């Protein structure tokens, strides 16, 4: 997803976590992510850092803004630059909004009954968000039931959700090191179990697993 503001090009991608690239006349840009919790209009700061001005296809990972949460969040991206007379100036904000946009749901589950249940919950999500779903499962008949299944060529997905029970990965470095008690934490980043799950799925029933991921 590209946005152009004057001579600044912003590219945002929400398909494998959240990634932002900025290309413009300044050497650095500052990208922040905020979250709107349910029934709250006050954004909570999650994380922010400066990135180099560089387009996506040339950007090594350390020059991108990356926020790895893959479950649903009502987030807002804010992009700023430094004006040498005024200091930090906001140039663009983008609040998560998948209405009328293609959203991909990948169900990773070998159990057909549970997959059916999760598809129902995906449909519930789409009803609320008014987005266009593309659902992929391990079951051909379920896939073919979705009219958008074969329309995927050239589609730009606004967001991709992977739905399943994912073990905690070693790269989940943002999970707070429990050995360090009282360690500094800048922002409201959560002590979550995995990038794919807001909570540990071992303590949830089948519907809660999918509802947790989709924020239902």
């Amino acid at each position: 997803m590209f946005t152009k503001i004057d001579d600044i090009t912003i590219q945002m991608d929400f398909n494998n976590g959240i990634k932002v690239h900025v290309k413009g006349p300044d050497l650095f840009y500052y990208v922040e992510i905020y979250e709107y919790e349910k029934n709250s209009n006050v954004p909570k700061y999650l994380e922010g850092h400066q990135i180099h001005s560089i387009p996506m296809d040339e950007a090594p990972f350390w020059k991108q803004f990356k926020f790895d949460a893959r479950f649903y969040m009502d987030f807002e991206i804010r992009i700023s630059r430094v004006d040498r007379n005024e200091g930090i100036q906001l140039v663009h904000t983008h609040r998560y909004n998948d209405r009328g946009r293609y959203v991909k749901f990948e169900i990773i589950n070998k159990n057909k009954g549970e997959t059916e249940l999760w598809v129902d919950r995906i449909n519930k999500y789409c009803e609320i968000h008014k987005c266009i779903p593309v659902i992929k499962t391990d079951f051909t008949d379920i896939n073919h039931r979705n009219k958008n299944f074969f329309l995927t060529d050239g589609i730009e997905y606004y967001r991709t959700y992977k739905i399943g029970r994912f073990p905690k990965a070693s790269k989940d470095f943002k999970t707070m090191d429990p050995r360090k008690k009282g360690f500094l934490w800048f922002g409201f980043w959560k002590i979550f179990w995995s990038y794919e799950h807001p909570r540990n799925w071992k303590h949830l029933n089948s519907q809660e697993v999918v509802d947790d991921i989709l924020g239902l």
Partner: protein
Amino acid sequence: MSSIYGFYCLSHSASASLIVDGKIIHCAEEERFTRIKAADQYESYPQLCSERIEKATGIRVKEADHKMFALPIHPDFGDFLAGPNYETCSHHTAHNYSAYFTSGMEGKVLSISLDGGGENNTSKVFLCEDGKMVEVKNTPICSQGSLGLLWAFVTNTIRGYDPNGNPVWKMLKDEGKLMGMAPNGKYNERYQKILKSIISYKDFVFSFPNTGFRTRFVMDSLFAQGEFNDFENIQDFAFNLQVYTEEVVLQFIDDLHKLFSDHTKICLSGGIFANVKLNQKINELPWVEEIYITPPMGDEGLSLGVALKKAVELGEIVEPVKFENVYLGFEYSDSEVLKISQNFDFTRKPYNAEEIARDIDAGKIIGWFQGKMEYGPRALGARSILTKATDPETHSRLNERLFRNDVMPFAPMVLSEYFDEIFTCSKSKYAAEFMTICYTTKEEWIEKIPAVIQKTDKTARPQIITQINNRRVWDLMNKYNEISNIPVILNTSFNIHNEPIIESPEHAFTHLQNKVVDKLVIGNYVYEN
């Protein structure tokens, strides 16, 4: 009898303290033993200083009645040092205990801590009275800005990076250099706007979160645009940073005063209050009766704070005490010193105050090693370098000897009887015993003691010397005053650039051997090359 060990680890400025039966016995910082200043931005643990306290007192950490850690803590280290039975205490609560319970203040007291961030907060405020403390405010770091991080990241970026990508000035070490150069700069509206866009303050809220990264973003961007190629701009930025910090903190304190107007005495702790110019502004607020800054105001003071908290809980300390001095390290007997001196080739003769006073008057640079080492960042006459304050060339001469390039003026020791004659404000003299506050110098003294006065704003950071807080320095200064008619001498820390203040006679002898000092007074003897 109860023994309480207090510790602070995991971050810079690790330290250990021991309180026995409500009496502060020892406090020491790890950097004095590792010889790495402020741990060079790495995590540090109070291992060597704890061992030294154990050796000096015979009280083993694991056998102590209470083991307390100020947060944050690495529990593996807690177990390693203290065994499984230790307690923890909030970072900023420990800061405030270290301030209020050493302030000696009576009546209603406002205790404020403010730093870059410790545990979950950048600040806590307590209302204190009759040895009771009630928390009334805190500033969560996850959602609010941090003035300490603003200073840390400006320090880390303003002089750029060396070819290896390391900052030329380092955070947690070189903030004093920024403050020291500030008076040489000038007001700049543009810099004020820039600083305000990084962090702003209103109604007890410091906006915006993640000040560290915001600051780095601004500084790197300005640096890339060549803003700091000109040294004058660096000085101007430092000036504006100082002015803006004062504006924000004074507003914060004024807002507190509106809520708690009967609390007119203030205790301060946390790294922000290492800023002696800021402390001067607070002291000069008309409604402020007295301020006190705990001498180990940074995180090195947390081990004491957390031990004091336990002592208060146990009823062993019931009201604020006053430090007679902060000589809480370890001392060496004359025979120990003599044995160490045999590794060097020096002449030795008995100490004579008048002779040293004459040496000072002649412009000699004297290494001064007496009794126990100071606790906290200031050398206060136990591990000091002394010389005369009357020569304007002293600044460059000392910098050359100590391999320093500081722009900060050196600090004066002042005989208490003459303090009001030399400085304009007479409030908060107890704080001035620990060199934690600046005062404006009276016009007639500026030319007399130029080596210890900031030329632009005419301030100095005096240490008041009394018969009680340091009898030997008091005697020496009286002798010097008889000779020169100047009740002031220059005091700077006994260390060279980038080195922690010395701890042991070996360190002192090495500096004498390397001609950092002309003479060395240790205990009852004077050593010379």
